[in-house]
Structures are given as C-alpha cells and as structure tokens.
C-alpha cells in the first residue's frame, strides 16, 4: 500500500501541480494584501483616525442609519441588524474585531476563500487524478498489476487527501508570509469572539466565547480542510465517472459557482439547504454571520457535507471496481 501511495505521490509531484497552485495562491495573496493595504489607508485618511474604537463606533452609527431607510429587503435588513449588534458587542467588551496584523489577514483570507477559491485549487488536483490515467492510457498498466482495484483507488484517494492538506498549508503559509511584510507578523494572541447564534429573533449572544486568534485560526483551518476534502472527493468521483477531465472539471466548476450565486438568493427556497454548494461557508458560523437559509447551523452543514462525501466515496469505489476498462 505504501508503495502505491509513493507511486501516486511521485506522479503528483512530477506533474508539478502543487507548484502551480502555490504560484497562483502567492500571486492572489499579494494582490489581496495590496488591496487590503490600500483600503486601510483610504479608510484612515477618510476618517482621520487610527483608533479602532472610533472607527467601529462610526460604523455602528452609519449602519444604524442605513437601517432606517425604507425599501430595503427583509433579509438585508436582518443581516445589517445582526452586524450592528455584533459590532456593538465587540465594542462593549473592548475587543477589536479586526486586530491589525498578518493573522487577521489570514483569517479574513480563509473566510473569503473557503467557498470558491480553495475548492478550485483542490479541483486542479482532484479532477484528473483518475481520468488522466484513461486519457493517457496508463490505466491498463496500472490495472494489470497483481493489486486489487480498490487498493489502487484508495492509494489515489489518500494521495488526494495529502495533497489537500498540503494545499491548505501552502495557503496558510503564503498568506501569513506575504501579508506579514505589510501588516506585521504579530497578533496571534489577539482576542476574538465566537459562538454568536443567529436565530429568528436576531443575534443571540448568550453563548459567546472568547478565544485567542491562533485558536480561532486553527478552527478555521480545520473547517477549510474539511470543505476542501468534501469538494475534492466530489471531483474525484467525477474523474472516476467521466473519462474527460475537462467535462468533470466543468461540472464541478458550475456547481461551485452556482453555490456562490445561490448563497445570495436562496433565503426563501428552503430545500436548497441540502445542496452541498450552499453549505460550504462553514467559517461563517464561527464568525457569527447569518447563514444563507434560516435555521442552518454548523452541525447541519457538516452533516449535509458528510452525506455528500460518503455518497461520492461510495460511488467512486463502486464504479471503479466494476468498470470495464478497454
């Protein structure tokens, strides 16, 4: 088994996919860092102060004023109300929600990339893991060996998991390293709040917990990894089912992008919450952002994703062991 995995890893590294992914992440992080830097600069120029309490207080008042305008959709109003309440909570407890420094940048980067960017990077590896063997014809060489088929597929799957773990690590290291030059490398110990519950009545602050940023980041990374594994498994399944890598990638891409779009407009379509792509924003639960559909919770989303994961895994192994190869 370990030989098989070694073999798969060799193929992965020979294809230099991880290097390509690292370069893409590096370039994007550099762009985001610069954008963030400019945003902070203009904000400080406009408000004339660096004091986060003053800035937060102004934000609260501004949002409260936006709430008073008529002709606003109910969901948007609710979202703003939750935002105001959360900001007020931070202010009342003297905690800066955006403590300056690279760790905060990493947190924001993860929260924004969990739904689309990281899954895309995972797809780059997962979508041709099996199908490329077909298109290159190497699958026959592989299957004529005296090894059970499921073992071959398992070795591929384990390689995928390892690659996903590496991608998350690369994303973390690059976003910390690059943004650190601009925002400073400190800030791991900054306090941050989690455990806000978004209910029908609004924001519930009864279960709020105080964490250090590094703990929070570890949790974020765990969730990002989980999402990446689920998305990776789904595209792995497609690469088993469909011989054409491009078609498999296209399907997965369409699903992910539709998820990003649906997130903004499914609030009244209740059964959409069983789609995997609506459940990808797991980090939002930690941060206390309202879910796309009322009533969704962290455990609900994780359960839904687990089902999709298990189904995809089952289909992959079932089909691969039964398939005729010619």
């Amino acid at each position, binding site marked *: 088994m370990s030989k098989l995995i070694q073999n798969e*890893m060799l193929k992965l590294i020979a294809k230099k996919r991880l290097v390509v992914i690292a370069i893409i992440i590096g370039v994007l992080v550099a762009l985001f860092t610069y954008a963030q830097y400019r945003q902070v600069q203009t904000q400080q120029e406009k408000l004339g*102060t660096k004091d986060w309490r*003053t800035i937060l207080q102004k934000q609260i*008042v501004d949002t409260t004023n936006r709430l008073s305008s008529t002709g606003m959709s109910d969901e948007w109003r609710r979202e703003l109300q939750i935002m105001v309440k959360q900001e007020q909570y931070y202010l009342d407890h003297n905690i800066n929600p955006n403590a300056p420094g690279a760790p905060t940048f990493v947190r924001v980067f993860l929260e924004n990339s969990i739904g689309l960017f990281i899954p895309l990077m995972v797809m780059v590896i997962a979508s041709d893991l099996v199908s490329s063997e077909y298109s290159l014809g190497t699958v026959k060489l592989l299957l004529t060996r005296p090894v059970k088929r499921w073992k071959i597929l398992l070795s591929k799957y384990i390689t995928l998991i390892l690659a*996903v773990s590496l991608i998350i690590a690369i994303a973390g290291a690059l976003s910390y390293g690059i943004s650190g030059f601009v925002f400073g490398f400190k800030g791991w110990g900054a306090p941050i709040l989690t455990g806000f519950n978004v209910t029908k009545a609004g924001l519930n602050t009864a279960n*709020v917990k105080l*964490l250090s940023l590094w703990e929070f980041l570890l949790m974020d990374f*765990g969730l990002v990894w989980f999402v990446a594994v689920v998305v990776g498994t789904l595209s792995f399944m497609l690469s088993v089912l469909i011989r054409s890598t491009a078609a498999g990638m296209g399907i997965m891409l369409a699903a992910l992008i539709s998820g990003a779009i649906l997130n903004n407009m499914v609030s009244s379509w209740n059964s959409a919450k069983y789609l995997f792509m609506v459940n990808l924003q797991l980090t939002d639960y930690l941060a206390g952002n309202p879910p796309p559909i009322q009533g969704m919770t962290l455990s609900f989303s994780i359960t839904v994703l687990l089902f999709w994961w298990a189904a995809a895994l089952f289909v992959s192994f079932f089909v691969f062991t039964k398939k005729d190869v010619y």
Partner: protein
Amino acid sequence: MNKKFIRLITAIGALFCLVWIIGLGVTFKAYYANKPDKIPKVTKVPEAPKSKKELRIVALGDSLTRGTGDETGKGYVGDIVDEVKKKTKRPVLLINLGINGQTSSQLRQQVQQIEVGRQLQMADCILLTIGGNDLFRGGQGLQDYQTKQINVIEKHYLDNLKFILQQIRKNNQTANVFFIGLYNPFMDLAQGKEMAKVIRHWNYDSAEVSASFNKVVFVPTFDLFELKVNDYLYSDKFHPNTKGYRLIAERVASLLTW
C-alpha cells in the same frame, strides 16, 4: 526523482493532515462542549489619550445632525467642519453619531454607551440636535399639538434632555456644547401659527434647561425659517435643504470657539 524527497513531501502532507483534523476537533469542542465564557463588559469609560493633535467635533442627535435632506450629504455639521478647517491648522476630526429618527429617549440610551462616553470625553466641541422627533413624531404630532398630550411629551423630553446634558458634562467639563433649537417646518400650513406657538414654548423650555448647565449654548433656528420657509425645506417639507442647513451652519459657526 529522488525517493527521499517524495517521502518527505508525503510525511509533511500527513503531518498537516493531522493538524487540520485536530483543528476540526477543536472546532467541535469549542462550538459544542465548552461553557460560554464570562467576558467582562467595559463598565468604566476608559481614559482617553490626553495629548492629541486633532480637533475633535462630536455631533449627537437626529436626522438634522445626520444631514438628511442635504443633497451634498454634509448637513449643518459638515458645513461647520468646513468652517473650522479654515480657521485652524490642526487636523479636524468629525465624529457624527447622529441617527435618523432618533428621539430624546433613544439619545438618552445612546449617551450612556461606554464608547460614546469616551468620544464625548475626547471632544473639543459638541453639537446637538434633539427633540424634533419627540414633538413631530413624523407628522403625527400635528394632530394633537393642542391637546394635553403635548405637555406630557414635553415633560418627558425635558427630563431626557436634562439627563443627556448631565451625561455630556459628566464626561467632559470643558468642551462647548451647541444645542440647536427647533424651527417650524409647518409655517406655511393652515395651523402653522398655532404650531409656531407650541414650538416657541418648546424652544423656550429647552433654552431654560440648557442655561442651567455650564457652557451649553442654545442656538435658536426658529427665526431663520420664519420667512420663506419653503425655500429652505427639502422636498419632504420637513427637513432643511442644502440652503437651510447652510443657514443653521452659519449661525453656529459664528458662535464657535474652542
């Protein structure tokens, strides 16, 4: 390709895999198992930095402070800041805490917030508009302006006003407070004259309360809007327009010292 290198990459991948699984475990533990923390609320207004370069103007109140109706979006507060910027070399920082539709009861709540208290503490000059929403209540007040109801509303308002000014003085003994009085937006309407009477009385009582505090200046605006009221009102016939705000700003600016 080097075998050792592949082994190393595999090992690193496995290691991170483990770390992320631990992260996932921590998430579950923190999210479900742990008891909520008792996070201390800030109860005392934190000490503001003593030496500051900038000149701070804090504006409290309702839609007038916000500048509703002004096409330039500045309101009288923005105009005053522009004036002040001309007169001083120090950087001017405006903290506008005005909220549309705010009544005196709501402002009473707002000034008790810790951060608002800290902003007041750091202020060099404080601008205030309040009472319009108590009296007019978005136009409904027109109906019962002559009933006894108005006395109850006014008493409640004066009580709140006193509390608000006390709160401001508690946080900041030195800054000048400019309390902008009410004008009569209904001057041209049928009951305009009677309404004017109520507002004059209201303003008089407001001025009385202001006078009982140190360095609180009541700035009348009633006369500014008395003639040609419609030239100075926004299309909602309630809030001032750009010209109207400029009138108020000019009056306050002429009083400003810090």
